[in-house]
């Protein structure tokens, strides 16, 4: 049995997201959930299990396999005064709804000269690592983060999984929440009483002085493990959890680099033209002279994600890769 301090609760990531949605729906009649298999099935990843029974089919709506239609309907419902949470089963399927997200949700406020904001929240699972092969393993957070008009958040911790949602729902503009599928079973401590957290800043998850490991989402814990390993090798690594990819907290990145003078960016997306490229460009623009060594990137190999376990593992960023990159630039 785990000993828990009285002001902490142990919760899984999955339970945290569910609790966040339940609370939002209990407190605000305008909030409802829709998506494929969110009701009777309980959610592809079990996130909404029990919610149909609690809230009924009006507010926990199973949709057809029509990503464009139900994402678009979420956008329309948001324009019509509701506060929809649209669950797209995975980022892979969100490509079928790109028109609605990019051409409608992201543009409406601007095209209408400020008249029509779109308070929709779109949640989707992302990432690889479970041998589900190329069409179910994309990490396209960086694609979405390219688009002005939407906000992109990547909760990695239990607290963020629990408390980013109310902030996203209160936001007047479209927010996409990426939940790394590998995180749903993770457990962690949730401070009590908690409360909504911001969706605009990065957080230092571990303080260090020799190198900054910059990451987000599913790669954060690989970075944390790498930092543990580096500590045994006498290297003090700082870990920065970006949390939000748009708007990107560039100040936090620069602040950390200014202290450690070295950076490794860990991103499960591909390296080319990706999120990691943006981060490195920001460092080059604002903190080039702070660097004592070249920046390193640990990203997914430039291949579709293979099925075979050993091949998939080789394609994805792994702890030893992060450790090796950090050791190289600190000169060990």
């Amino acid at each position: 049995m785990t000993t828990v301090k009285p002001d902490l609760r142990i919760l899984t990531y999955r339970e945290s997201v569910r609790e966040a949605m339940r609370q939002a729906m209990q407190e605000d009649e305008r909030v409802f959930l829709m998506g494929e298999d969110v009701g009777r099935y309980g959610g592809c990843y079990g996130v909404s299990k029990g919610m149909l029974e609690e809230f009924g089919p009006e507010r926990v709506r199973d949709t057809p396999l029509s990503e464009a239609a139900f994402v678009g309907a979420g956008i329309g419902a948001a324009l019509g005064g509701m506060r929809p949470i649209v669950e797209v089963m995975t980022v892979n399927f969100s490509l079928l709804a790109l028109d609605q997200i990019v051409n409608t949700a992201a543009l409406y406020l601007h095209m209408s000269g400020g008249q029509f904001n779109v308070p929709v929240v779109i949640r989707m699972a992302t990432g690889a690592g479970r041998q589900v092969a190329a069409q179910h393993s994309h990490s396209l957070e960086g694609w979405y983060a390219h688009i002005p008009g939407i906000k992109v958040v990547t909760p990695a911790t239990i607290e963020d999984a629990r408390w980013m949602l109310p902030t996203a729902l209160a936001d007047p503009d479209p927010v996409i929440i990426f939940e790394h599928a590998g995180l749903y079973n993770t457990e962690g401590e949730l401070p009590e009483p908690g409360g909504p957290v911001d969706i605009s800043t990065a957080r230092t998850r571990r303080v260090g002085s020799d190198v900054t490991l910059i990451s987000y989402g599913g790669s954060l814990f690989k970075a944390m493990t790498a930092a543990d390993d580096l500590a045994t090798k006498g290297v003090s690594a700082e870990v920065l959890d970006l949390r939000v990819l748009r708007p990107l907290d560039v100040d936090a990145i620069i602040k950390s680099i200014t202290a450690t003078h070295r950076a490794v960016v860990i991103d499960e997306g591909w390296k080319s033209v990706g999120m990691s490229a943006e981060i490195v460009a920001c460092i080059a623009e604002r903190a080039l002279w702070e660097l004592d060594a070249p920046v390193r990137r640990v990203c997914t190999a430039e291949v579709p994600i293979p099925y075979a376990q050993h091949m998939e593992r080789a394609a994805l960023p792994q702890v030893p890769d992060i450790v090796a990159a950090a050791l190289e630039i600190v000169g060990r």
Partner: protein
Amino acid sequence: MTPDRDHLMHLLKEMLRIRLFEERCAQLYQVEKIRGFLHLYIGEEAVAVGVMQSLVSGDAVVATYREHGHALARGVNAGMIMAEMFGKMEGCSRGRGGSMHLFDKSTRFYGGNAIVGGGLPLAVGLALADQMQHRPQVTAVFFGEGAAAEGEFHEALNLAALWNLPVLFCCENNLYAMGTALERSESQLEITLKAASYQMPAWAVDGMDVLAVEEATRLAVEAIRAGGGPHFLELRTYRFRAHSMFDPELYRDKAEVEMWKERDPLLTLPMRLRAEGLLSDEDWDAMNREVLSEVEEAVAFAEAGTWEPIEELTRFVYSELGAP
């Protein structure tokens, strides 16, 4: 039921407003007051005017990039529409949208959507919000027959029918998706059959006859408001002008255009009214003068408009603090 004279005159005037407004737009395009894409609705006026008669304040309208007519018929201020096309800050979208992206919160006019088929899911969502909030509103969404080839069309119709949502689907069948004729893009030419396959009432209507459009819409909207779920109108119409100002019209015969022009609602309705002794030359001249003066006022308003300061460029990407 025979409509009374006032109502017939109202329908005629509404169509004339669109016609004269757009003829002026074409001139203004030639002198480069209006730039970018300009898609004229000329020939299709009976559709927008006929449909709008059954909508009340609070209903929502979602239109296409060929939407000047819908905006005017919905009651969006003509001056603000013209100013928008001039790119002025006084435009209905502050000059950020232009001809293809007219928006107006006060009349619940949701664009101005320039991705074919993209407006349909949005309309489904607006109707879902009305249904969930127990409002008696109807959402009318306009799209061309070309949209019937898009996945979003089929997904949206299915969802609207599945959830029994108050949507009026208004398919403006002008026979050409830009330059591609219906028979060269569809295996099934009867568009109402596509809609009917989603278990919703779907009627083909003469879109050149404003009274036929009005009557069909009235029946559909009454049924929708009574909880009858989505209805689908295929409004058979024709675009007299080119697709946009860049279109040399290589894909259709002049004779075909001329044949359709004989059915011009701004020819046939005045003829009918004259025959019935309801419209004199003086009436028609007066109506033209009145509408022309509204158009010229709109142009003057647009001319007098101002350019948004470049310092405001990055506004309206995200909502501003304190905004509702």
